């Protein structure tokens, strides 16, 4: 890992501050820069390319830095009992508030599906049993049985507002942990919205993001189909989905990112805060020792109960 990081040369871009003339080094995927000498917020506009289109929308920060820090501190303290003790005591370090690039994907999904649909019916059957006097008797009872019928059909629906990350710094599950964003607050992108803040350009290719979005769309169709099946039950549901009328728009979402370093030998844990809603998400490191102790205690209790039970008989 470490070797990789060193090998990956960052192609810094040199720009000069339009206010004081100082030379600044800017990472290539950044859309903004703040001059360290005069604090002037610069906006960098590049001609759009296929993998780096101009953002269409943005959602502005609502959560201030102070609120984000509070939210993360509380979240770390209240993290799972099984979290490593050092993690719960660690002080989260604010790295930055950043406008994260992500794609907003919409499409019409047309699917064909095959399934076995279970239709229940009741039958009266006779059976023999022994009554309390030990005699063999014949009785009747009604039982519910299921008849399986094949169903093949088509399903059309909208797939709306799938959000997939376009930044290599944040994975899809990490972004999902702080979703949803309230898309009613979308604004048309303008450089003014990101002035004074960090903003990234997409670092994943549009192809890769399309793949993600497509995968999520197919998953969503699966969920919808489950609710679409008639009958009392179903099994062997299989489907094929074609999408059309796809649209994919680059959106800059407000995210506060934090790093929690609880162990010098381990990489810090990334924690994100939704800059619109304040929702916190991150992966808590679980302490194997704590989990083992808990398992042992539970086993001991079961053993004790079993022993008591045996002794009682």
């Amino acid at each position: 890992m470490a070797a990789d990081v060193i090998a990956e040369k960052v192609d810094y871009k040199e720009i000069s501050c339009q206010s004081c003339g100082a030379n600044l080094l800017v990472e290539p995927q950044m859309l903004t820069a703040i001059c360290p000498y005069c604090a002037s917020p610069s906006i960098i506009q590049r001609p759009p390319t296929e993998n780096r289109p101009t953002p269409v929308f943005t959602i502005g920060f609502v959560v201030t830095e102070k609120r984000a820090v509070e939210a993360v501190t509380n979240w770390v303290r209240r993290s799972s009992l099984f979290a490593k003790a050092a993690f719960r005591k660690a002080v989260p370090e604010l790295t930055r508030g950043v406008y994260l690039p992500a794609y907003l994907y919409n499409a019409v999904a047309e699917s064909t599906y095959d399934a076995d649909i279970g239709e229940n019916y009741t039958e009266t059957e006779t059976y023999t049993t022994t009554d309390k006097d030990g005699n063999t008797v014949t009785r009747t009872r009604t039982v519910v049985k299921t008849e399986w019928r094949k169903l093949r059909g088509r399903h059309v629906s909208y797939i709306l507002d799938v959000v997939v990350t376009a930044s290599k710094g944040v994975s899809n599950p990490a972004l999902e942990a702080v979703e949803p964003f309230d898309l009613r607050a979308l604004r048309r992108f303008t450089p003014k919205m990101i002035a004074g803040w960090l903003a990234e350009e997409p670092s994943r290719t549009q192809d890769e993001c399309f793949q993600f979005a497509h995968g999520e769309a197919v998953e969503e169709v699966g969920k919808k189909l489950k609710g679409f099946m008639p009958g009392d039950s179903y099994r062997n549901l299989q489907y094929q989905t074609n999408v059309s009328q796809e649209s994919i728009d680059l959106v800059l979402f407000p995210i506060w990112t934090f790093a929690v370093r609880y162990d010098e030998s381990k990489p810090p844990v990334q924690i994100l805060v939704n800059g619109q809603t304040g929702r916190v998400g991150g992966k808590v490191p679980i302490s194997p020792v704590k989990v083992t102790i808990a398992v042992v205690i539970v086993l001991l209790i079961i053993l004790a109960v079993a022993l008591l039970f045996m002794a009682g008989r």
Partner: protein
Amino acid sequence: MSESDNSTIAAGIDRRECDSCGTPLERGDLRCAICGKAAPVLNVSVSNAETIKILRCTGCGAAVAYDPEKQAPSCSFCDSVFEVETIEDPMEQTEGYLPFTVAPDEARAQLQKWLSSLGWFRPSDLSSSARVQELKPLWWVAWVFDADARISWAADSNQGSRRSAWAPHAGTTEVVFDDILASASRGLNAREVGALSSGYDLGSAKDNPENAEDATIERFDVQRSQARKQVTDALEQMARLHVKGSQIPGTRFRNLHVSLVLQNLVTRRLSFPAYVMAYRYRGQLYRLVINGQDKTLLSGNAPYSMAKIAGVVGAVLGILILVLLMVAMTQ
């Protein structure tokens, strides 16, 4: 930018359509409300070279930065706030008023006619002694929409059933919905809207209500986003009705699921004329609503004659007892 775009800008009309599903976009829409596609940008400025700039306040020249407290870009020095195009969600406004073509006197006469047509179970003097207390012209509000829908459905029906009473069925169908009316009225109930809604001439809408001196003019009291939700709910309801009525085979069904996609959903917001009449019969108030363009379409309530109903019930019971007695006698 295409030529048609230029001409709409020149005309100052904000009439755009979603590229993908043909649904008109309205002023303040950043995205299509139906399929989610971004609205095309009208003034695109594409720079071909990399530029670096500091955005400056037009008032004092200080740098502008986004401020989360104000939720807008703001000047750090003079506190000016800059507007950014955002999704607007205004209250719905009516686009036109259909004129009354039925005169108040005709409506009054229609009331008497209706009262005498109600049948034998009503009081005999209903038509003659009912007194109109009030006749109020009303413009009630509704959305009228057209859409092409592709509907997929699945349900159980008794057709083709074997051991179970049900067999699964599925299908797709395409329907053109034309001038479907979804009420936004608070004053009229669903039964009244159902009775009135068919007889209006939608092409006759005027910009202003005519002869509106003592009229009640309803307003839409929902925002655009809510209105769109109500319209799409109404569409889904229509789709279900269509599938129930003409698609599911057999005579009985259950577990109907419907999923649809739309093209060219066009919604108009209109105000419809009606007369609301209150009439009094033996101290009790009753209400009748009459379509303001077609007086035969109406919905109202009227009293029943308790004496007549009791008489009939008594007579039926008497006959039953007689029959029973006769049966008993013959045996």
